[in-house]
């Protein structure tokens, strides 16, 4: 793929995920979706990193990574099925919306307790190194997540054992209602110093910068088998989740979103680089919207999982206790 194709693909994923985001937020307001964590504003940083990865690389992502997943080839159907918790959902309707999984694309299964995906990411990287493979592991998390025990544990282990891990902090400046200045007194990328790890900050709103930086860093991690902490600076344009009311705790720092919106920034550059024309951009956007509308209507019709699916996958094989409880309940 040449640069142009690559960026066109990236832009399309941005547009698609924005369309999906809008649709789900709307559908939630209409009572058609239970819950959702909007990703608006974090498209560029996720996709910029994704562009730098290989298919075999493993991602321990978090709940706000829909753009990442879409760019890496997870079909919107898979995303929507999870959000609906329908009978086609990989996870069999077990998890809240936004807690995706897709083994086929080397995305792991998302949990709610924040940052607890980080220590397992180091284990995956250990396995890669032990097997002398060339893959790397990416793990993502928010600014708030840097305060957790799991962040500390994972950062130190990755550093001590020289593991090929990219720690991507998606600094959207907020952890629900807590601004990042109250989360910690330093810039996040500097936390890498405490572990003897490389750390850096990058403008996460600019797809092009994000890609350039990611490419360099990913190459280094792959070659040197050493971790890096990338702080991608962005902004949580939307609410924390559909249950959240940001008016309680923040005034509208972003008036119309157009200034810092990574999609607007990407569009300008796409035109500058002659990768896309304004018309093509409009077409991509309206196609994305249409596409998502269609898929959503379609997937919404799928039935919920059948009740007996609730009683599998606790273990490889049910024990007698679960079988008995299943019988009592169903």
């Amino acid at each position, binding site marked *: 793929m040449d640069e142009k194709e690559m960026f066109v693909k990236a832009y399309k994923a941005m547009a698609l995920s924005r369309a999906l985001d809008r649709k789900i937020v709307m559908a939630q307001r209409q009572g058609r979706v239970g819950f959702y964590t909007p990703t608006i504003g974090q498209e560029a940083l996720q996709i910029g990193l994704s562009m730098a990865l290989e298919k075999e690389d493993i991602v321990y992502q978090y709940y706000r990574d829909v753009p990442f997943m879409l760019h890496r080839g997870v079909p919107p159907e898979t995303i929507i099925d999870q959000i609906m918790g329908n009978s086609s959902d990989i996870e069999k309707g077990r998890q809240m919306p936004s807690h995706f999984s897709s083994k086929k694309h080397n995305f792991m299964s998302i949990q709610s307790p924040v940052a607890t995906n980080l220590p397992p990411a180091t284990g995956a990287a250990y396995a890669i190194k032990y097997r002398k493979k060339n893959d790397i592991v990416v793990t993502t998390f928010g600014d708030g997540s840097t305060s957790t025990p799991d962040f500390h544990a994972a950062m130190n282990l990755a550093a001590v054992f020289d593991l090929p891990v990219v720690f991507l902090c998606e600094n959207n400046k907020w952890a629900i209602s807590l601004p990042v200045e109250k989360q910690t007194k330093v810039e996040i990328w500097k936390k890498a110093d405490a572990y003897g790890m490389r750390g850096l900050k990058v403008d996460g709103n600019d797809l092009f910068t994000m890609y350039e930086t990611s490419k360099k860093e990913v190459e280094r991690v792959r070659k040197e088998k050493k971790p890096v902490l990338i702080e991608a600076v962005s902004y949580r344009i939307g609410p924390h989740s559909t249950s959240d009311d940001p008016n309680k705790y923040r005034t509208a720092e972003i008036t119309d979103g157009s200034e810092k919106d990574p999609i607007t920034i990407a569009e300008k550059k796409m035109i500058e680089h002659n990768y896309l024309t304004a018309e093509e951009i409009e077409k991509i956007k309206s196609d994305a919207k249409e596409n998502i509308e269609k898929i959503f209507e379609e997937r919404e019709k799928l039935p919920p999982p059948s009740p007996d699916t609730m009683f599998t996958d606790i273990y490889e094989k049910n024990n007698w206790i*679960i079988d008995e409880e299943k019988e009592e309940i169903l």
Partner: protein
Amino acid sequence: MSSKQLNMVQAINSTLDMHMKEDDSIILLGEDIGKDGGVFRVTEGLQAKYGSDRVIDTPLVELGIVGMAIGMALSGLKPVPEIQFQDFIFTAFDQIVNQAAKMRYRSGGEYNVPMVLRTPYGGGIRGGLYHSQSGEAYFAHTAGLTVLSPSNPYDAKGLLTSAMKSKDPIIFLEPKRLYRSIKSDVPDEKYSIPIGKAALVHEGSKMTFVTYGSMVPTVVNTVTKHSIDADVIDLRTIMPYDGETILNSVKKTGKVIIVHEAPRTLGMGAEISAFIGERAVDYLMAPILRVCGPDIPFPYKLEEYYMPNEGRILKAINRVQEFR
């Protein structure tokens, strides 16, 4: 005596307010509890009223919230940490189990930890695996902890008031399913419901229900609707549970059904049943049944199959009725 119709969120909020007004050693701390008023709005308005020194928005670290609260308690304050969802308490589990619970004992009584740890628990809001757990057994199994759970706004105020007076760590479990679904008449003045005393919320003679928290309305409604001649015991205090009240009822009825949302295996039902099996086996006229959550993670889409409901309770009633 004046009173108000309040839901559980309002009852807890106003009780915290009442205590904070009287006692400046009370400090609330947790994630999003201040400006935001808590994700369930339980602490709404309290930061505005008492300042950000007394209603602290903390960084995202449960271990730190509990650990810090322990230190406050050891230094003469009365901390009331909130864990946003009980599901997230496990990162702080060592501080709870190894520090708070064992402090008085290990220090020979020199130190104690008067802290009231509040946290919403249980299902009913489509929260899936990580916003629905009922972990009371983990705490009740831990010597040194006291575990409370109200089943209505009136009890919430009374139990929380007792908790605030305790000199030892309290795990105050708020059934989030009942936060806004029921109201009760809550007196304006202070009152307390003693720790360790259950309530007989329905009286009868043919069987005994033992339950608590979110399942109390479910059991009472089922019993009432189907005119079942049963005692319904609302534990209110999960640990130490009120053995005497349970025993008196069982000796009268000879039949027992225990209902809770938490997984059956080693849930509170196991302890209650064993307690009865130890001291009232000769009064039993039927198997001791447990109607509980199954031993599986809590599912999102099918949550109504997870939580005990009228149908399952009726099945248990039929089973014990068949016995004679």
